[in-house]
């Protein structure tokens, strides 16, 4: 019995190591052989060998190096065996023999650079967004194809096809494995950061896909380590940590709990402290950007002992700054909602009027309008707005929340205690 438990623990430990080293190993193999599919196959084979050996002799002290060495030998075997491979092998022979012995790697230096190169390849602007996301999760996150498929609600075969197409384009069009030159870096980094944020938010929208949130945070952490001089990378990490810190309070019995109603004792203090420290460092650095400002807004929320004690003026000022860098209707919407806490619901309505045409199909715009109307006592028009929001809502959680709101309005005409929707979402 104990033996079974031990074996299960060992299996889980091996599984965890695989997840941790997958991205490093694939990235190293891609550098050596310049071929993603070959790299993936070789790493997969190395895992098969490892799961046999490690269970009897234990996990080696440098599992990443072990996997890279084994996978590299496998890849060389394939190349020797196939005719086309022999040709390729001659071409890359020089590269492979001059690279440092992978067994010596200790997870720094070349390994980290390899991952950085690969993430820029995966998030290349010549690839469509859903391909960028799928490649990043598969190659760097080490998620299995079926896990990536489940995360984006598509079948495993559809996701496999998507990955094949994306890898085909990388190879055919020769998308380079390289960190972009300084001139292109800001724009290319933005594309990497927005892929990571999209991965995170996909995990927020559906609690069953929570693995995406931890994966996005893990990749952002790696990116910050790789590019410590990029304040926006740090800003993204802080934004995700501060948002994640509130996850335990965001749902009660499966229902959405708004920021206003959250039990702040449930917030994760360790994440808040780390997020705050990064935001403070960003402020000292004084090179503000969209992710840093969004992180700063979250930092103000996490700082408040209660919803009422929130420094709303500070939040509106940060939204003003954000809007000047990123003049999108959604930023304008969040700013309009924050204004409700400093200037009242009338101001929210006039701010919303200006952006309503752009966001007519966005449920949160109608929810914000409903909330402001409710605070003004205009219950009938508020109900219409909430109904429109419910029709447009994209997640079950939001739909359920809005349906309940509408029910309350219909049932209890005398209800005078209004509970407006949260100011910047939950």
């Amino acid at each position: 019995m104990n033996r079974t438990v031990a074996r299960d623990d060992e299996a889980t430990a091996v599984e965890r190591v695989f997840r941790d080293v997958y991205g490093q190993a694939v990235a190293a193999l891609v550098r050596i052989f310049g071929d993603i599919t070959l790299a993936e196959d070789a790493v997969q084979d190395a895992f098969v060998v490892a799961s046999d050996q490690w269970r009897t002799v234990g996990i080696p002290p440098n599992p990443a190096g072990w996997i890279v060495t084994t996978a590299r030998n496998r890849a060389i075997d394939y190349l020797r065996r196939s005719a086309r491979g022999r040709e390729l092998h001659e071409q890359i022979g020089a590269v492979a023999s001059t690279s440092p012995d992978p067994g010596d790697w200790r997870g720094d230096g070349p390994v980290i650079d390899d991952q950085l190169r690969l993430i820029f390849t995966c998030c290349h602007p010549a690839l469509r967004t859903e391909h960028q996301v799928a490649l990043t999760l598969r190659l760097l996150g080490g998620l299995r194809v079926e896990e990536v498929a489940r995360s984006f609600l598509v079948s495993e075969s559809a996701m496999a096809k998507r990955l094949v197409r994306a890898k085909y384009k990388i190879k055919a069009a020769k998308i380079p494995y390289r960190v972009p030159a300084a001139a292109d870096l800001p724009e290319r980094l933005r594309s990497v950061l927005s892929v990571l944020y999209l991965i995170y938010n996909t995990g927020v929208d559906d609690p069953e896909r929570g693995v995406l949130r931890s994966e996005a945070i893990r990749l952002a952490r790696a990116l910050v380590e790789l590019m410590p001089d990029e304040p926006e990378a740090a800003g993204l990490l802080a934004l995700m940590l501060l948002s994640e810190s509130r996850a335990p309070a965001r749902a009660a019995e499966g229902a959405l709990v708004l920021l206003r109603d959250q039990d702040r004792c449930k917030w994760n203090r360790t994440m808040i402290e780390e997020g705050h420290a990064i935001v403070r460092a960003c402020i000292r650095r004084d090179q503000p950007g969209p992710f840093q400002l969004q992180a700063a807004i979250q930092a103000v929320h996490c700082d408040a002992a209660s919803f009422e004690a929130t420094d709303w003026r500070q939040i509106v000022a940060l939204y003003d700054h954000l809007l000047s860098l990123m003049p999108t209707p959604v930023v304008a919407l969040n700013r309009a909602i924050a204004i409700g806490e400093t200037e009242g619901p009338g101001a929210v309505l006039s701010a919303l009027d200006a952006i309503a045409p752009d966001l007519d199909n966005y449920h949160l715009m109608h929810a914000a309008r409903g909330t402001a109307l409710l605070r003004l006592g205009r219950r009938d028009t508020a109900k219409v707005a909430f109904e429109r929001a419910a029709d447009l809502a994209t997640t079950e959680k939001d739909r359920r929340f809005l349906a309940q709101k509408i029910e309350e309005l219909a049932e209890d005409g005398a209800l005078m205690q209004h509970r407006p929707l949260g100011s910047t979402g939950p």
Partner: protein
Amino acid sequence: MSQYLLSVHAVEGEVQRAPTTPEEMQAFMERVAALEAEMEASGTFVFGGQLHGPDAATVVSMSDGDLIMTDGPFAEAKEHIAGFYIINADDLDAALAWAGKVVDAINHPIEVRPFAASGRVRV
């Protein structure tokens, strides 16, 4: 070194972006000539040209051993290839950088497509 096709896709009847005055035409030609000189000097330029419109096209096909000529382009599409460059580039980033210069010079979107093979087939 890889080769890429940079093709200019024009929309039939769309003239708003084309140079209208002789001065504009002159400036346009100078921009294109300067760009092509830059391509040539860096060993990027392989070939390029401007095509007549789709009305000048003929499709040739084989049916039951007979050659068939059909007046007009392959597909009755609104967009057609108006011209192209074939360039040498190390990788997609280099090709995209040249594509950006072309778009800037001609003020028109282009498609960048890698060659799977180029030059004469040798057996």
